[in-house]
């Protein structure tokens, strides 16, 4: 990604609504053709940022450049962006074809060419034959396709999507995710996607910016975000995570020894400023990075616990294991095969949890 040129440059942008700081000094560079997601809980500023890209809000300070042009003086109707709204904003007084052709008025295409373009868009969105339907005769998924077609027919350089899948049910949402990704690859333009659904962001995006309180907490590719979150907030927002308070008790050359609440003494490779002696920090471990066994099979990176409860999820099971010196059960994700078919695994059974050293994520204490 770094090899590509910056296409959208968000430069120290802030937005205040009265006393409320919606977006606080955010800088993001996005390359052409990138699928970029803004992820965060509601009120984190992601939608405000998107609306500033579209031109519906103007930054209190900072500047947005798209394709090298400063946007602050450019009104929404002259920007090279098009948007898919959260509720789709399909015009109810127009039929599907009328909605899709809405943005073509100024292009003065002539009737034949316009019809051809609309038909093409209908076809691309698998809406053939729906041109004469009224908007309120469409299902949620169809409305969303109309909204996409209406935006893409303008051939924008950037497509902005404001939680477009939020109103759909789970199955349809998963289908649309795949379609969106395929669509983005086929049209090849930059997509900026706002969502509060971390799974959606990870599935779709080339890169994700995790936002909270108007700030970008971390900006990275999905894999990096999942495996190497930079702080407790990102780690707890993305997927499931077990957190253990820890303190550095000894530095032994290349290795440091951590005293953790729950995992006992853990030896990790020394890297970074976090590992000075006496530093407090948080050790994080994904449930699927822990493995559960009935015997102690390894010497290092293992801890004894008691099975508190388990949840059967079909393709896998989640076990909750109580550890000494740790206040809540640790979550462990395991495959259904093997362990849980073992009937002996009852509440209160002694179990051993082990993990690979490099799966430990060391985070600054909040």
């Amino acid at each position, binding site marked *: 990604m770094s090899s590509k040129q910056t296409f959208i440059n968000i430069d120290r942008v802030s937005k205040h609504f009265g006393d409320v700081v919606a977006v606080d000094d955010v800088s993001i560079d996005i390359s052409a053709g990138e699928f970029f997601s803004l992820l965060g809980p509601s009120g984190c500023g992601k939608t405000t940022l998107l609306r500033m890209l579209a031109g519906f809000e103007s930054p209190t300070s900072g500047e947005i450049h798209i394709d090298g042009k400063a946007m602050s003086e450019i*009104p929404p109707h002259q920007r090279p962006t098009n*948007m898919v709204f*959260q509720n789709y*904003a399909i015009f*109810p*007084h127009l039929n599907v074809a009328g909605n899709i052709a809405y943005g073509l008025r100024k292009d003065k295409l002539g009737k034949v060419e316009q019809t051809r373009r609309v038909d093409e868009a209908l076809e691309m969105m698998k809406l053939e034959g729906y041109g004469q339907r*009224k908007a309120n005769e469409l299902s949620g998924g169809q409305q969303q396709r109309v909204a996409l077609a209406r935006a893409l027919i*303008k051939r924008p350089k950037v497509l902005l999507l404001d939680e477009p899948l939020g109103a759909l049910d789970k199955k349809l949402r998963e289908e649309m995710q795949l379609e969106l990704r395929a669509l983005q690859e086929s049209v090849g333009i930059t997509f900026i996607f706002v969502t509060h659904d971390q799974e959606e962001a990870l599935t779709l995006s080339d890169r994700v910016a995790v936002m909270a309180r108007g700030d970008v907490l971390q900006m990275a590719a999905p894999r990096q975000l999942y495996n190497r979150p930079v702080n407790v907030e990102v780690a707890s927002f993305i997927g499931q995570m077990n957190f253990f308070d820890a303190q550095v008790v000894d530095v032994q050359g290349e290795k440091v020894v951590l005293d953790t609440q729950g995992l006992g003494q853990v030896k990790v490779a020394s890297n970074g400023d976090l590992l000075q002696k006496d530093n407090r920090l948080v050790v994080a471990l994904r449930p699927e990075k822990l493995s559960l066994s009935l015997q102690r099979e390894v010497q290092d990176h293992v801890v004894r616990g008691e099975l508190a409860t388990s949840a059967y999820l079909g393709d896998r099971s989640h076990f909750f294991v109580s550890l000494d010196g740790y206040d809540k059960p640790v979550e462990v994700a395991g495959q259904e095969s093997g362990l849980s078919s073992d009937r002996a695994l009852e509440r209160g059974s002694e179990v051993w949890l082990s993990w690979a050293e490099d799966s430990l994520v060391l985070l600054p204490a909040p």
Partner: protein
Amino acid sequence: MKDVSYINRPNRPLFVYAVLFLAFLYVPVLFLPLFSFNDSIYIAFPIENWTLQWYRDMFDNEPMIAALMNSIRVGAVASVLSTFLGVFGAKAVTRYRMPGRDPIVTVIMAPLVIPGIILGVALLILINRVGITPSLYTITLGHVLVCVPFSMATLMTRFEGFDKSMEEASADLGENAWWTFWRVTFPMVFPGLLASVLLCFTISFDEFILAFFLGGTDPTLPLYIWGQLRFPQRLPNVLALGACILVISFIVVFISQWLTHREPDSTRS
């Protein structure tokens, strides 16, 4: 009884109350059409003979026709003018973040609660001071003043009923404010505009107090009716006329309400 839930089970006291309430509202009014078919010029029971004579007489009554035409003209201009003002006012207060929005709405809505007679006296003093002769024009302006709040209220409902992201979508698709208004806002609030015009027309058409204060030599229909009440033998004509106005007003208000509350063709269900 199976379809009856706790909330919609029959409630006899409530039913009786509703009937009494409706009777209280409408029985006095219904005397008007009833006696308009009475052969006698005296209003008394029992009605001995029925007639349509009073209705026939109306068509030959030239001063009345003139007054009717005056009312229609005043009503037409006042309703269109107040709707024109109302649509921009309603758009402004429902769409833009602006300081003092609530006080502004209150001030616009104030003529609803100012007693008509106070408004009438005040306007009469004003036009005398400025030196304008009372006429149908001054009545029209007075009516605009009382109609704008109704127009605003009708149109604000309409504006609040459709999502402002519709207008944003239009801007996003390349249309400036002017084209967005004509291609999106106007078609979507059009039923509201129609409702507002009809409602304002009925208000102006029935309005008496302001017309009384601000009128010149040309009477509107309510002023004409008021004048006729001095002559007992004309009373049946007034009753017939009143019955007609009643029926037409009901129809117009009904249409206007229907337009206002009709499910907007929104994408949300």
